[in-house]
């Protein structure tokens, strides 16, 4: 069991390639993407539309080292600036197969 950081990014589904791109550039060992039903923030209500996907968010989780987390946060800022959303960091311990 290692002490790790649990980094979560909730942002516009349109930004997904960029989010994955930044995780790749930090070389995290893995990540998981979760569906989001709806959300609210500064840009108002967001709930995926059956037609357009224009208002849908995604939630990406990666468990990584503290240094990696710091780099993710830095890379994340401009993406959040353009597409809105939040990035959370919390502590966890981690067991890998």
């Amino acid at each position, binding site marked *: 069991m290692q002490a790790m950081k649990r980094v979560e990014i909730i942002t516009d589904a*349109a930004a997904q390639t960029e989010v994955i791109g930044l995780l790749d550039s930090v070389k995290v060992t893995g990540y998981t993407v979760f569906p989001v039903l709806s959300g609210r923030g500064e840009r108002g209500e967001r709930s995926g539309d059956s037609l357009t996907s224009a208002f849908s968010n995604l939630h990406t989780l990666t468990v990584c080292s503290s240094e990696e987390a710091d780099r993710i946060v830095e890379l994340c800022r401009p993406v959040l600036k353009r597409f809105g959303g939040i990035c959370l960091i919390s502590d966890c311990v981690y067991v890998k197969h």
Partner: protein
Amino acid sequence: MKVSRNRVILSINSSPICEIGPDLNPVLSNLLAPPILFFFLGVFATLVRSDLEVPSPLPRLFSLYLLLSIGFRGGAELAHSDPEHSALALLAAVSLACLLPLWMFFVLRRRLPNADAAAVAATYGSVSAVTFVTASAFLERQHIQSSGFMVAALAVMESPAIVIGVILARRFGDNAALDWKHLLKDAFLNGSVVLLLGSLLIGSVTTTAGSDSVKPFISGLFPGMLCFFLLDMGMVAAKRLRTIREAGLFVILFALIAPLINAAIAMAVAWVMRLPEGDAFLLTTLAASASYIAVPATMRLAVPEARPSLYLPMALGITFPFNIVLGLPLYLSAIEYFWRK
């Protein structure tokens, strides 16, 4: 009340109150068509906050079906088209898609930020497949012919306005470098263009036996599927309409007037090119319609500062209902008036 072909009989307990003859008001006749009625049912359900819902991704099934069906049937009719005629009509369609965004952008930027103006211009320069499909069903009910290549016109009109919109946003906006490769790919290879053109091609190259085998699915189910889809569209439109009040009077008026201006321009083009009535009507409808699938999908990546909460409610909440309810009979009446003069 029952309407049989060209006669409307308003009655109570089967005794006729009034009778409308062969020259039945086309607005009324359109209002009583099942797809339009289901659209209103969807609007009603949302307004009274019923929990009626067509859960995601079922509406995608209907929209995929409509694209596949309209494409395939257009392709099957392509063989009977005059190629010169078709080429001219497609040229007109592309020109409209490239030019219409320009006048709109310069009007819109007097009131809106550049990014928003560009996105709205792209929205109204591009087209709505469901409006086209509803217009085709409307034509069929009026027993007016149209050509298969008008489906190709639908397909070629989707992308150019998006590209123009992004260029305008950059040229008059942040002037950032343009990722041409991504932009062109997103605009020209978006799902609906690929499915539509693909089905068109398939419909035109397949064997007659193959074509007959899929007929019950592709033609038989079409009007019913359209009803189902418009039921959902009614709910989505009413939801979006709720949020539009914040956007202000200017955009509401724009969403009502721009379709009329674009329709008039398209009619003039069709008139000059001597397109037959049915084709002229479809071209007019395409010009008047506004995109709410392809445009947001591309714009959100290329111009993320443009607000979908502005351009989507305009297209979905105002222009779409206006077109299918009042626009279609209006455009057809105008065309019949001028073409038969």
